[in-house]
Structure formats: C-alpha cells, structure tokens
C-alpha cells in the first residue's frame, strides 16, 4: 500500500504532520537535516495520536548525575499525553525501552511528491 501524502515543501524541517496511507493514520516527521520518516500515528502506550506531540531533542544518557547533554534536536518525537520519547532516526524506538517502537513505513519520492508505503 502506498500513498502520496504531501509535497516536500509542505512539511518544513523540524515539523510533523498527520496523514493516511490507505486507511492507516500515520505521522510524517521531517528532521532538521531535511530527511522524512513515517510511523503509525499511535503511541504504543495508550494510543495517543503522535502527530499531536512535539518534535524535540533529549538529554543523552550520562554517567554523571546533574549533567544534561541535550542532543538529537528535532529527532525525538514525544507523545502528546505522557511524553514518552521515540527516536525517529532509530526506527521509532522508545528511548526508555528500545524493544518497543512505533510502526515503521517506507518513505520515497517522485519529483516533489512524498510517498509513504507500508513495509514489505
């Protein structure tokens, strides 16, 4: 299943939007480097629409209490409800539990069209 979900310029870097691939609601994310990523638009915790969340960064794990190294700006998708963090450049895996992740979609392009398709 595949769908043209938008033109490239309709989603500027650092932003997210909701779309559909067939009947499946997805969240399309564009990282600050201009790359596109697409996931199921549903938090694996309680099902909130991820497109209502925020694209942000996150403090890196550290061995030093009190140390904040904010990284991955624009690459972390936080749930609009409980704020669970997903790393969109790491297959949408939950930062706190990488065994849980958002459903992944393929993103491709034809001219300016952004095409999202289900993984085979």
């Amino acid at each position, binding site marked *: 299943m595949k769908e043209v979900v938008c033109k490239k310029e309709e989603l500027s870097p650092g932003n997210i939007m909701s779309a559909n691939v067939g009947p499946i609601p997805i969240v399309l994310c564009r990282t600050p480097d201009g790359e596109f990523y697409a996931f199921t638009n549903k938090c694996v915790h*309680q*099902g909130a629409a991820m497109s209502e969340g925020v694209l942000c960064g996150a403090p890196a794990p550290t061995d030093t209490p009190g140390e904040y190294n904010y990284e991955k700006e624009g690459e972390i998708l936080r749930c609009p*409800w409980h*704020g669970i963090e997903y790393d969109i450049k790491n297959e949408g895996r939950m930062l706190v539990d990488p065994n849980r992740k958002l459903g992944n979609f393929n993103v491709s392009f034809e001219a300016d069209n952004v095409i999202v398709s289900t993984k085979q």
Partner: protein
Amino acid sequence: MAEKKQQKRAIIDMDIHERVTYDELLPYLDNPWQRYIKDTNWVQEKHLPYPILGAAGLDRADAQVPDGRPAGNDLSFMQQQLLDDVGHEAGILTGAGDPSPSSMNGWYEMAVALATAYNDWQIENWLEKDDRLYGSVHIAAQDPASAVREIERVGSHPKMVQVLLPIDDRPWGDPYYHPIFEAAERHNLVIGMHHQEPPNYYGKFPRYFVEWHSVMPNTHMIQVSSMIFNGVFEKYPNLKLAMIEAGFTYIPAFMKKMDQQYKVLRHEVPWVKRMPSSIVKDHVRVTTQPVDELTRDEFLKFIDLMDSDEIVCFSTDYPHWDYDSPFRALPPLGEELEQKIFAENARKLYPKLPARERKVTQ
C-alpha cells in the same frame, strides 16, 4: 474519532479537571476581593520548583482549546474531545488546582471568597450545562466554620456530589476539621481528596519532578491513615472518602501495614474499633489513574490482595498530561470486574449519581 469500544460499557470518570481563569471568576466575587485581584493581578501562590514535564507541561498537548485558551477551559471542546468521544455516562469535576482555596497558607478570607465564587461559576457554567457532569464543593477548610456554611449553601445542589480537599501539608483527619465531615455526611457528599502541591519529601520538595510524582501515593497514605486513626469513620459512619489520582497499587500493602500497626498499637487510638483494612473496604475508594502498566494477571493479584473488587474506580484525569485512556489504560479484566471499575463502584460511592445506566445524551 470515537472508538467502537465506547458503547460497550458505562463509564463514570472520577477525575475531570475543568479550568477557570481569574478573569472568569471576577463576576462571581464581591469587593474587596474583585478589586484585589484586578488591581494587583493577584494569583494564588504556587510551590513546585519544577514545571510539570509532560510534552506540553501540565496538560495533554492535544487538549489546549483550539482558540488558544488553556485545556479544560471550554465545555464544548471538553464535550467533543472527552465526553462525546469516549461516551461518558458521568464525570466528576475536580477543579484545576488554581485557585485551590483550601491550599492557601494565609488570607483565609480570600480563600473563603474564592471557594464561593468558584462553586457559583462551576454550577452555572458546567453542572447546569451538561447532564453528565457532576461537581465538587470547593471550600476553605482552614476555616471549618466557613467551610460548613459553604457546604450548607451549595451542598444540596443536585449535581454536587463531593467536597474537595486538596492534599498539601495538612492531614485532614484532625478533629479540627471534623465539622466539615459532619456537614458532608449530612448532605450525602463524599469527601474527595486530590493532591495539590504537597511537599512530599520530608516537608520539602525532592530534587526532581520524577521523584515527586513517584512518591505521591505517600501523601495519599498520610491522608487515609489520618482519617482512619483520628476516628473519622467511626464518628461519621456514612461518610465515604475518594482518593483521587494516586492509582491503586499502593493500597494492598498499606492495608496490611495499617492492620499490623493497629494490632500492636490499638491502645493509642481506642476510638478505632476495627481493622483499618475493614474501614478501607467500607469507606475508601481510589482511582485507577495514573495507572501502572499491568498485565491482567498482575492487575488481578492487586485486586485479590485488597480482598475487594469495589475499591478501585476508573478516572481519566482529563485534560492533564498523564491522562488515562478508557480504551487502553487497563488490561482486559472480564465483563463483571470491568463494569465495577468503570462505573458501578463509583455509582455505589456517590449516592447522588443516577442509580442506573442512562442513555448518553449529547
């Protein structure tokens, strides 16, 4: 979009936060209170040293009113996003903690005025505009005589179902506050307790929000033990207590702990006539939210340890960041237990709720 599951069962939601703005309260205040707020831009003191760290702070990021007003401020948006979409049979309003008259550390006269104004605002703009919504009587508990007057004034409103006491640093079981319980019992009102900004680390605040939020059940335990060991339920045998927003997994261990202490220290509180766990089963109810992720087996073990399936009642905490979805927060528990948790336990708790299921009206 509503999920199909919504029509499956009745839902009584024990924790919905409607939000007032100070501007909206002004018409309900007399002077000098109105002038004090207008002239000095007064707002109630806050204590937390950190922001609430959800994706959008205190509220769900998708719950802000589309015109920019804060979450919980608009009835029609709440109807659309919560009551209609989920299919609530009933929901109980618990305020948004600002103002929280009983939390004020001074100027109790202002607290009294705010409680009165809040109740009038709540009745006019929420309780009388949606059949599904029921209310909490806000009081200034620091001044029990005024609190009783306020309960007398609005407590018989058909849609007021409880008296709200915030959890800060006052243990409410102290006999000083007993006139409030006498008035609540007389008006068929439950006592609902919901934490405000309790300094829950040795009377201060922990370094991190995650600590403060993790140990919140401690503050609820303090209140439950205060009510039990000060003999509130012996004195007011029809009074019920709803502990809102600390989940339920702490309850089984606390029942065992109180029973053990009572066995050896009963002589200190001879006015308490039975096991604390028995008092909990008869008088105390707790909400599911914020729920811990549990498997069905884990969930049922907690229920089993409580020796009662009538203590736990569902709540969403809408529109706050740690909202629990009625469709996703709990594991499948079987029809009988789900009916109790989602509606019937609350219906039994609040004598002023409709006695039987109604068709949802919109």
